[in-house]
Each structure stands twice: as C-alpha cells, then as structure tokens.
C-alpha cells in the first residue's frame, strides 16, 4: 500500500490536471478569504482613522450641545454603561441558575428538550421583536414606562440564551469525578455545585457573559421603544428614567439630524466600537488564559 502518490502517478496527465485544478481552486479560496479579511480590515480602519479625529477629553466628558452638533457624548456613554450593568444584574443570575438546572439537576427528559428548543429559539428571535416584546410587557403592561429598567430587562432576556449556553458548556467541562468525590464526602447536591463545580466554571461563565453583554451593548433595535431618549442632556436619575445610549445616539446623529459634523458621528461610532471590542478582547484573553491554566 502506498502512503503517498508515487512518481509515476504524479506523471499521469490526469493527476497533473487535478493538481492544476487544485491550484486554481486554492487561489480562488485564498482570494475569497482575502476579500472578506480586507473588507473587514477596511471597515475597522475607516472607523479608527476617521473617529480618532473626533475623540477628545471634551467629547467623552461633556454634555451634547447645539442640538447634538457640538459638545460631547457623556450622557450616552454613562447611559450605555448603566444599561449594560443592569442587564448583567438580571441576566447573569438567571442564566447561570438555568445552566445549573440543565447540567446538575435535570435528567434528560422532554422538559429539558423543550428548554433547549426554547433556548435555540430565543437566540434566533429578531432583535426588533425583543423590542416589541419589551414595549408590550415592561413598558406598558408592567408600567415601567420608557426606562432603563424596561430596556435592561428586555436586553437581559435577549442575552439569556448566550449566557445559558456558555455556562452550560463551562459547567459540563468540570469532570464528573469532582462531583463524585464531593458527594462521597457527604456534600449535598447544592453544596457540590456551590463549592466544587461552580468555582471551576467561573472563567467559562464570565467569558460567555462578556460576549453576550457585548452584543447587548451594541444593540439598537430592542432599546428603540424601551429606553432610548432622542436628546436628554442630563444623566438618568433612577432606573425609571429614560437614557441616552450610544448605539441609538449614533443612529440619531447619522440619519435623523442633518448637518452634523462627520467627526461627531465617527467619534461616536469609534467609542461604541472600542467599548464592544474591549469587552470582546477581554473575553478572548480570559478564555485563552483559562485554557492554559486548566489542569484536568
């Protein structure tokens, strides 16, 4: 048996033609990948290059002025951070608890299959439909009004599937034997989860949460009717307040108001992209470090 094509096969016209086809195909594959990579780089490059000119200490820390044509985006930055913080506060406990249920408590029954189906569907629901849902349930039915609270709850439900899936994976990666040892020492199921499984799964859970949150931070459609204030040159006073948020602010200044200097627009886009990329990069670094340190 030959392990590699020997010289006489390589010499046949058939093989030579196949090699030529392969060469052409590989060039095409490379070009396609290059096209995707270059376009992505160009997009990021444009945002960086044109946005850097708009960034300044004043831009980051001042209130908007002159109908948002001048001044800074301070309230939008604060609004985004508050919204994201609240979203984590709602989504993280629920998502982790749900993952614990799926990995540690539930047997593989029709209930868990239904839960998994629900998670798959939640992750596919269009973001604007989450916006409608948030409007119907939180803004109107619960009477929260257009507020940080209503928006954060809406975003939390949108983020839930990401956190559940990531947490489940992290919990499952803890070896079964750890649980068996804990049980054999007399620990109850909850004690095992709390003191043995959960601490080891924390990095994985954090990675998933950050990724979910970074997506929520950039979303506009779900907050259109639940939080977003067109123009509100002050900071939100409570969770029942409306707030300016970066993605919606970018939408407003790039399409709704004419004659806004491009530096304002690109500056806002850059701040939003930097925020989201910083979250993502920290998740990537966290995951890489965790993988290296894992000892089982």
């Amino acid at each position: 048996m030959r392990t590699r094509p020997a010289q006489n096969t390589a010499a046949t016209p058939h093989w030579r033609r196949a090699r030529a086809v392969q060469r052409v195909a590989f060039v095409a594959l490379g070009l396609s990948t290059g096209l995707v990579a270059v376009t992505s780089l160009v997009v990021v490059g444009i945002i960086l290059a044109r946005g850097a000119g708009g960034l300044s200490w004043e831009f980051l820390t001042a209130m908007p002025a002159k109908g948002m044509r001048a001044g800074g985006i301070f309230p939008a930055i604060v609004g985004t951070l508050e919204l994201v913080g609240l979203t984590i506060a709602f989504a993280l406990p629920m998502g982790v608890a749900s993952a614990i249920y799926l990995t540690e408590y539930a047997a593989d029954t029709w209930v868990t299959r239904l839960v998994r189906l629900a998670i798959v569907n939640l992750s596919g629901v269009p973001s604007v439909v989450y916006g409608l849902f948030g409007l119907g349930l939180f803004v109107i039915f619960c009477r929260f009004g257009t507020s940080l609270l209503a928006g954060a709850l809406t975003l939390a439900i949108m983020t839930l599937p990401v956190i559940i899936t990531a947490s489940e994976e992290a919990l499952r990666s803890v070896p079964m034997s750890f649980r068996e040892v804990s049980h054999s020492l007399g620990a109850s199921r909850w004690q095992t989860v709390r003191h043995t499984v959960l601490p080891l799964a924390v990095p994985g859970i954090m990675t998933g949460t950050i990724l979910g949150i970074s997506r929520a931070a950039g979303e506009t459609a779900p907050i259109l009717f639940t939080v977003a204030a067109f123009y509100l040159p002050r900071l939100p006073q409570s969770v029942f307040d409306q707030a300016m948020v970066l993605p919606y602010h970018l939408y407003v200044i790039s399409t709704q108001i004419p004659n806004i200097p491009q530096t304002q627009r690109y500056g806002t886009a850059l701040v939003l992209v930097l925020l989201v990329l910083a979250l993502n990069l920290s998740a990537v670094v966290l995951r890489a470090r965790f993988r290296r340190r894992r000892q089982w």
Partner: protein
Amino acid sequence: MRWRQAREWVIEQLIRASGISSIVMVVLIFAFLLKEGLAVFQTVPLGDFLAGQRWYPISEPPRFGILPLLCGSALVTGGAALLSVPLSIASALCISEIAKGWAKEALKTGIELFAAIPSVVLGFIGVTVLAPLIRQAFHLPTGLTALTGSITLAFMAMPTIVSITEDALSAVPRGYREAAVALGATRWQMMTRVLLPAAASGIVAAVMLGVGRVIGETMAVMMLTGNAAVIPHSLLQPVRTLTATIAAEMGETVRGSDHYSALFAIGIVLFAISFSINLVADLFLHRTRAR
C-alpha cells in the same frame, strides 16, 4: 440542620424555576405579540394583511398589506445570501484546511471580532462609504437600495456562517481525509468530494442561521435600504423590510391603534419565520452531532 435543608430546598426550587425560564420567555414573547397584534385582524382580514400590495398605514382609510415588506425582506435577504454563502464557505475551507499556525488563529479571531461590531455601526459605514459608491457605480438617484443593504448584511451573516461551517468541517473525522488522500485524491478533490458532503448538514445549518440573522437584522437595513414600501423589481431599487417597518414606525403610532397592532402583527410574522428557521437549523445541527 433543618435550617440548612430548608435553605437548600429554597435554592433548588429557584434553580428549577430559572431552568424553565427560557420556555416561559418564549411563551411570554409569543403571548404579548398575539395580545397586541391580533387586534388588527378585526379591521384587516389575514389574507389582505399577508397578500395586500399596499402599506399605507397613515392614509385614510389605512392600508395594511405587508406583501411589499415581505418582498423587500426576501430580496435583501436573498441578495445577502447569494453574496455571503459562497464567500463564507470558501473562507471556512481556507481557515479549516489550508491556513496554519498564526494565520489560522488571526483569521478566526478577526472574524470573531468583526462579528462583534454593532449593526448600527455597519449601517453608518454603509451610509457614509458604501451608498455613495453604489450611487456612482450604477448612476442611480440614490445609493440607498436593496443592494446596499444586501452587501452590508452579507458581511454581518459571514461570521455566523464561517464559524459554524468551520465547526462542521473540523467535526469530520481525520480518517475520511486520510482515506481520500491515500486513494490519490488531491486535497481539493478531498475537500469537494469528501469533506463538503460529509459536513453538508452542518453547513446547511450554518447557512440557515446566517440567513436567520439577516432576516431579523434591523438597524443597518433601516439605514441602508431607502425604506420605500413598494414591491421591488430589482436589487437597485429602494425597498423596505419587515424589521425596518417596525423600527421606523413604532415611535409614531398611538398605543392601541390599528397601526400599532399592525406593527405587532408584523412582529408575529417575523417571530414565526425565525422560529421555523431555527427549528430546521437545529434539526440539521443535531444530525451532524448524532453521527
């Protein structure tokens, strides 16, 4: 001891309750869409709603026919799929089979990071950079067309399609590759005749999830497609999608009006579409895993 047991009982009940929260949420979403949306069918019959050719929500009397919006969504999504599917599968093959070492890691990380760029930012770039290019290239009165939306959305779908396709490709056992090469196939023959067929169900799932993302995409589409609610005849016309209609008009409606519930009814349609796409994609994904 009793106290600890009681506390654990409470915690376990909470965990169980959270466990089924996803089901509750799906049901709640559907229930609220129905609650707010069904009212419109008292004024417009379902057939006229789905097949009506005019969407004039604020004329007198108002017309709520979503056919132009359905066509708009289909056109933009179809265009995006045509662009992104071949490019994504090519990139996935390149990353999984050809690239090695740092190039492979760089491409994977780059795609992951590109996926993180918010849709409103891509919409903004589309408005300022892509739309003028399209306008000049095709000598159009406006650069805000279905094509502009399709190109931008293609790039938003790519990360999803590439990463799931790549997973599917790397799940194909090593033995398949070795057997093909041992029989004298070139690597390209191995890829097209062994790898792609073996990973087919995963790739179908990847494409469906990518397309699902495109159909549900809102902000970039609203900013880029020109928002004309007419039945489109070419990719170079302005169109309006289901998602953009909700996002653009909800702010101006009166709560409880026909227009308001018509927008929720569009939400029901979108929910149904995404529900079926995800269901089918999940079936295909499980077929890969089961093997």
